[in-house]
């Protein structure tokens, strides 16, 4: 960051812009858990079953997607170096369209309701594609050496591609037309969504936030310059290579290696951090990176020993490791940095010189609240993995733990938001008095 792209308090979007996304997202994960409780062991029969498709999208779009949207809308002016125009109505429109679209999509998928799917189609398409366009165009102004800005642009291109594929699959679902390449497109949709949009974004953001918040040494410059574009090209090539299985396998091995390098480098940097204080967010990051490495290892094992890939539950294990293990852990950890920081920053901005005292970040979101939630999250992950293998025994405890973990996360975010309101009201009174 340079002084040219410093962010004045007036330019920062109001705290409500990201917070509305952060408050909604865990509720989608709670809904997913309640649906899993209702479905019981049957849920783990197939990852393509209507209920599993619905639950997956509650997590990927409802939880991961909404938090990533909110966080990017918050970061965009900082990364681009200029404010985004009319952030409140823009965020409001994207939030309402996306939330409505996700709810209808998941309802339509789970209960096979074509009408809900038909309404979800334009809502999700408008929200996500206009978001991708907004980010891509705004970041034209970012400094060329800003690797996070570049990664964000590539990630939103992957988001747009994932959404377009999703819309094709959804219209096929809603209108029932014949689609020959359905399976191949679904495979590409989930690969681009998880590795492209989620994976590239997490890597690009990590280059900046891991050294800054976890006080680690910087990432190697060559890695920050080359990794994300290389992964992006490999992901694109995957589509082009669909008719050449051996070439495609080589691309996938390179992709797996790229993500493994990212995870191992980050874990290594975290081991070298300057101050070895306990930190819930750091632990969630580490758990997430281990989740990613486990997914890579499982996938590699299946390439070497085909019997592993043919196991019942192999695909679902990969999905749980990537979505709950990798992405949800890291996003949960990011929330524990972003939310208290934003509350603190906006309160600081409101109070002016010699105003009321602002609580510090540890008071805004105390570890006594975040650490138990983290433990529940990892317990839910472990039991979910067990539920994939032995659904009859573990399906209910997994869903229950997952529900409690995400409800607790929601409570923690709401509590931080309430602290903001309380202190902001007090400093308003002080200013008026």
């Amino acid at each position: 960051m340079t002084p040219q792209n410093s962010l004045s308090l007036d330019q920062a979007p109001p705290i409500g812009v990201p917070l509305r996304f952060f408050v909604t997202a865990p509720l989608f994960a709670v809904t997913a858990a309640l649906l899993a409780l209702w479905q019981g062991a049957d849920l783990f029969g197939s990852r393509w079953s209507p209920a599993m498709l619905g639950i997956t999208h509650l997590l990927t779009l409802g939880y991961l997607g909404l938090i990533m949207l909110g966080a990017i809308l918050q970061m965009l002016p900082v990364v681009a170096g200029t404010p985004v125009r009319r952030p409140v109505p823009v965020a409001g429109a994207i939030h309402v369209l996306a939330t409505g679209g996700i709810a209808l999509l998941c309802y339509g998928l789970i209960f096979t309701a074509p009408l809900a799917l038909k309404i979800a189609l334009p809502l999700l398409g408008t929200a996500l594609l206009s978001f991708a366009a907004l980010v891509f165009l705004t970041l034209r102004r970012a400094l060329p050496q800003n690797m996070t800005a570049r990664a964000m642009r590539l990630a939103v291109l992957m988001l747009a591609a994932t959404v377009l594929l999703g819309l094709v699959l959804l219209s096929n679902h809603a209108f029932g037309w014949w689609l020959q390449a359905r399976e191949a497109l679904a495979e590409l949709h989930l690969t681009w969504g998880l590795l492209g949009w989620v994976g590239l974004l997490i890597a690009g953001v990590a280059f900046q936030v891991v050294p800054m918040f976890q006080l680690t040494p910087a990432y190697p410059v060559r890695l920050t310059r080359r990794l994300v574009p290389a992964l992006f090209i490999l992901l694109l090539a995957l589509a082009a290579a669909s008719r050449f299985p051996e070439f495609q396998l080589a691309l996938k091995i390179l992709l797996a290696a790229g993500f493994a390098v990212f995870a191992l480098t980050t874990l290594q940097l975290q081991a070298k951090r300057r101050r070895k204080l306990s930190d819930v967010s750091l632990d969630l990051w580490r758990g997430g990176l281990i989740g990613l490495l486990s997914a890579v290892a499982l996938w590699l094992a299946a390439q070497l020993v085909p019997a592993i890939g043919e196991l019942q539950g192999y695909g679902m294990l990969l999905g749980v490791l990537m979505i709950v293990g990798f992405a949800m852990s890291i996003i949960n950890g990011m929330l524990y940095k972003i939310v208290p920081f934003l509350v603190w920053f906006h309160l600081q901005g409101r109070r002016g010189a010699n105003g009321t005292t602002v609580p510090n970040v540890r008071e805004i979101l105390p570890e006594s609240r975040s650490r138990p939630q983290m433990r529940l999250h990892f317990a839910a992950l472990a039991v979910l993995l067990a539920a994939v293998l032995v659904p009859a025994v573990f399906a209910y405890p997994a869903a229950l733990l997952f529900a409690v973990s995400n409800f607790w996360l929601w409570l923690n975010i709401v509590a931080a938001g309430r602290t903001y309101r309380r202190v902001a009201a007090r400093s308003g009174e002080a200013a008026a008095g």
Partner: protein
Amino acid sequence: MSDRLVDARWLEPPEPMELTLAALETLEPGGRVRLLIHREPYLLFPILEEWGYAYQIHSGDDGTYEILIRHKEQAAP
């Protein structure tokens, strides 16, 4: 007048800013805060502007920054 030193090197954000703002609140007229930090505190500058402080930035060879902060009316021209 001696400078008030805030050594915020390798503290996690926003602790450097918390310490700096706390030091400024009790700063005597004519006094200065000397902030040492391991990265450029770009979020601090707009707050300093808004609160009526002037600052000078010196970057060290070792990647650390020294920021000298004082009340605007006493700032050197």
